Every structure is written in structure tokens, then in C-alpha cells.
């Protein structure tokens, strides 16, 4: 099985949502700010449930928040 890469647009989505802070996003989805930081930096791949909750906060489909690129 090849290594997968999950990238995200959380930084820009936060920016386009009245410059929402990481803490505000963390509070909205019920995680710590450190977890939001780790997800933004690509250091942590969230669970499917958390990914959907993040998409719900931005009121956008999940594929607008996360994109998956398998290693070639």
C-alpha cells in the first residue's frame, strides 16, 4: 500500500470566515487549539467525524476542506 497524503485548506477557510482564530475553530469542533494547529500543518490526520465537523463549521463540502493525493 502506498503512502497517502492528506492536505487541507483550513488556513484559507478560516481567513474567509471573518479571520476565525484557531481557538474559535477548536472550540467550535470541540478539540484543543494544538489539534487544530497540527491538522493545519499536516502533522495530524483527523478522524472522519472531526473532518466532517470541520467542514460543517465552514459550511462547505468535506472535499473543499481536505484533499487526498496518493503518492505516485
Amino acid at each position, binding site marked *: 500500500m502506498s503512502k497517502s497524503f492528506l492536505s487541507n485548506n483550513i488556513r484559507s477557510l478560516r481567513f474567509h470566515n471573518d479571520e476565525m482564530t484557531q481557538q474559535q475553530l477548536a472550540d467550535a469542533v470541540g478539540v*484543543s487549539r494544538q489539534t487544530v494547529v497540527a491538522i493545519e500543518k499536516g502533522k*495530524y490526520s483527523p478522524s472522519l467525524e472531526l473532518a466532517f465537523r470541520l467542514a460543517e463549521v465552514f459550511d462547505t463540502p468535506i472535499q473543499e476542506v481536505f484533499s487526498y493525493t496518493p503518492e505516485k
Partner: protein
Amino acid sequence: MSYQEKKNVVNIVSTLLITGGYFWYVTQSGPAPDLSTEELLKFWAKSMLILIPVSIVGKIIVHIVFSIGNAIATRDHKIPPTDERDKLIELKSNRNANWIFGAGFLIAMFALVMDASVTVMFVVLICGGVLSEVFDNASQLYFHRRGI
């Protein structure tokens, strides 16, 4: 440094201080050099059993002091919630710690097979336990900083 990272550092320091301090006290008061194997077993078993409440009470006190100190220093009275990432980090760190403790247990058994004294076996067991706890918190610190 996040709350979780600070907590891990405090845990490492408190583990070393409490266990180290307790066993320094224990070795100062015994065991007598002329004890039989049965008496030695009883001495070390008693020492390890007493360590459990000493360690629990010590850590509770340390955590109360840490929480108060952290709240004063950061002026934030909220303790961050434990989320899925924290739980995953904890599970991975526990797995690493179990390996260390298992290795300590095997070395302790090996020491007995090689005709080492009961004291050597217990010292290796205790060191394995302390090392596994330190490694547990060090792993958590690493995963919090570097990602999982």
C-alpha cells in the same frame, strides 16, 4: 509550550523525584545485609506496595500545585479538553512504555536465572517501571511536538 507538554514535563520530573526520593529513603533504612531471601522478598514487596499510595498522593499534590501555578502564570483557568489526538498520543506512548516495562521485567527474570540476588531483581523491576513511565511521558511530549 502547551498545557499537555507542560504536564508531561511535570510528570517526568515528579516521577523521578517521588520514586527516587522514596527509594533513597527506603535504602537508607534497610535492607539489613544479613537478611534471608524470604525476608528480602518481604522487604522489597512491602517497599513496592507502600510506593503505590506514596506515588498516588505525591502526584495528586504535584498536579494540584501545577494546575494552580499554570492558571496563575497563563491567567487561563480552563483546562484544555482531551480530544482524539490526545487519546491517540496517549495510546501510542503507552505502547512504547509497555515495551520498556516488558524489557525491564525480562531483564529482572534473567538476573534471577543468572543467580543474582532478590535485591538486584527488584531494583531492575523498579528501574524498568520508572523508565517506562518516563518514556511514556517523553513519548507524549515528542508526539505533541513533532506530530503523529
